[in-house]
């Protein structure tokens, strides 16, 4: 591998950070789309120079962009996300039913094999697909049939913020929605069911073990073991060994099991990363110390990674899509903060450096290894 490209979405534009394989010296390009909220940028595994970006604004709505040259130039593609049929309703904050309304694209998951095929997770929660490079988007409406009338927005909106494609089973897709839970399709997105058994939301739900309604913050898998899933829930770090059919807690010795992102080491399927946050009402690290926690045992036993990270007076947050790993050896780990810092570890988390420290609040971080 000749290097890495880190794709950073922020509240006020996108930034592209590049380095050679040593991952010590960085070049920063941006802001791309200055002034717009960039919820997610992601590259196609089938063509690393094909990037997709979700650009949104409270004033001007949703715009989608595509690049064919690794983010040097961009072209607009389709921005019409129309729900299939009569959109129906979901639960509103006051318990009434509220019509589904498209607000923005939170998450993009390009196909592993086709640069023109991409899934998009949106708010109000639904999943869309394009097969023509983003020119047109079609909803997979079966997802909203999975008890959608009971879904309810969390504080950040009712967003579909995670899509995982099973590399060994083209029909299997996982999604996560706040605040509805995790869902799985085994038929390419045609039909879906909730996969939330074992999740407990004692403080958030009247029935702590309800089928839907859990505030899942992030889910991830290692591609070599797609039946093993890890989840950062609102509170609790969870694990499933049966593709979501059942979950058990692996929070172990974490100083707080509240948090947003979760990631798995590229070469070690039992090595997992989280960033503990103090609580649901205090969205910053416990004790003002920014610590990534790593488990090499698939959970329960966690080790604080602090070398190079601020250990005093640090009160930033790390959002759900703002943690990523690269595929180099040793595995690189990256995350961005609401304070605008982007940190990188070229040695699996043992030590950290600041790539850039004064960006707008970081919403998402993705990384590509470049050939």
């Amino acid at each position: 591998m000749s290097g890495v490209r880190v794709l950073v979405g922020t509240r006020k534009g996108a930034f592209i950070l590049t380095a050679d394989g040593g991952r010590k010296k960085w070049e920063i390009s941006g802001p791309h789309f200055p002034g717009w909220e960039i919820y997610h940028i992601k590259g196609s595994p089938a063509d690393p120079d094909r990037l997709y970006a979700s650009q949104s604004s409270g004033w001007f709505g949703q715009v989608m962009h595509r690049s064919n040259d690794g983010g040097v130039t961009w072209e607009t593609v389709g921005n019409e996300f129309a729900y299939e049929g009569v959109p129906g309703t979901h639960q509103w904050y006051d318990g009434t039913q509220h019509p589904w309304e498209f607000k923005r694209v939170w998450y993009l998951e390009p196909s592993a094999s086709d640069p023109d095929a991409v899934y998009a997770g949106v708010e109000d929660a639904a999943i869309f697909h394009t097969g023509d490079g983003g020119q047109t988007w079609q909803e997979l409406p079966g997802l909203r049939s999975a008890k959608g009338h009971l879904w309810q927005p969390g504080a950040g909106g009712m967003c579909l913020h995670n899509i995982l494609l099973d590399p060994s089973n083209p029909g299997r897709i996982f999604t996560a929605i706040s605040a509805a839970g995790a869902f799985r399709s085994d038929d390419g997105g045609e039909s879906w069911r909730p996969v939330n058994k074992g999740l407990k939301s004692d403080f958030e739900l009247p029935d702590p073990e309800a089928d839907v309604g859990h505030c899942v913050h992030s889910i991830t898998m290692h591609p070599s073991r797609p039946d093993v899933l890890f989840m950062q829930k609102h509170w609790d770090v969870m694990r499933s060994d049966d593709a979501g059919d059942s979950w058990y807690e692996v929070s172990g010795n974490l100083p707080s099991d509240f948090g947003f992102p979760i990631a798995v080491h590229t070469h070690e399927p039992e090595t997992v990363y989280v960033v503990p946050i103090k609580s649901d009402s205090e969205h910053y690290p416990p004790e003002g110390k920014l610590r990534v926690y790593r488990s090499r045992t698939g959970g329960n036993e966690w080790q604080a990674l602090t070398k190079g990270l601020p250990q005093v007076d640090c009160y930033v947050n790390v959002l759900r899509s703002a943690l990523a790993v690269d595929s180099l050896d040793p595995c690189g780990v990256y995350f961005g903060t609401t304070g605008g810092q982007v940190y990188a570890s070229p040695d699996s988390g043992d030590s950290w450096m600041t790539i850039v420290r004064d960006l707008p609040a970081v919403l998402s971080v993705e990384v590509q290894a470049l050939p």
Partner: protein
Amino acid sequence: MIRVVLPTHLWRLAGVGREVEVQVEAAVTIAAVLDALEASYPVLRGTIRDHTTKERRAFIRFFACQEDLSHELPDAPLPEAVVTGDEPLRIVGAMAGG
């Protein structure tokens, strides 16, 4: 020709200058001007009004001749000064704090 002044984000998105001109064949209304604008610059579809319902986005305003026309019906005629090109229709991102 009808003159239309765009907010910064939208003229950058469309790759044009701050002011553009559009041709409107029928009655000069906000709806007709937006139809012509979106036909000339398809990238603006969905950014000023909803794709399907054609409702104005909540934080978009339409000003002309020192008047706020945002709450006029989309098919209401625009002022004569806009029709003659002496004054532009201004599409504005509303003040929204932050």
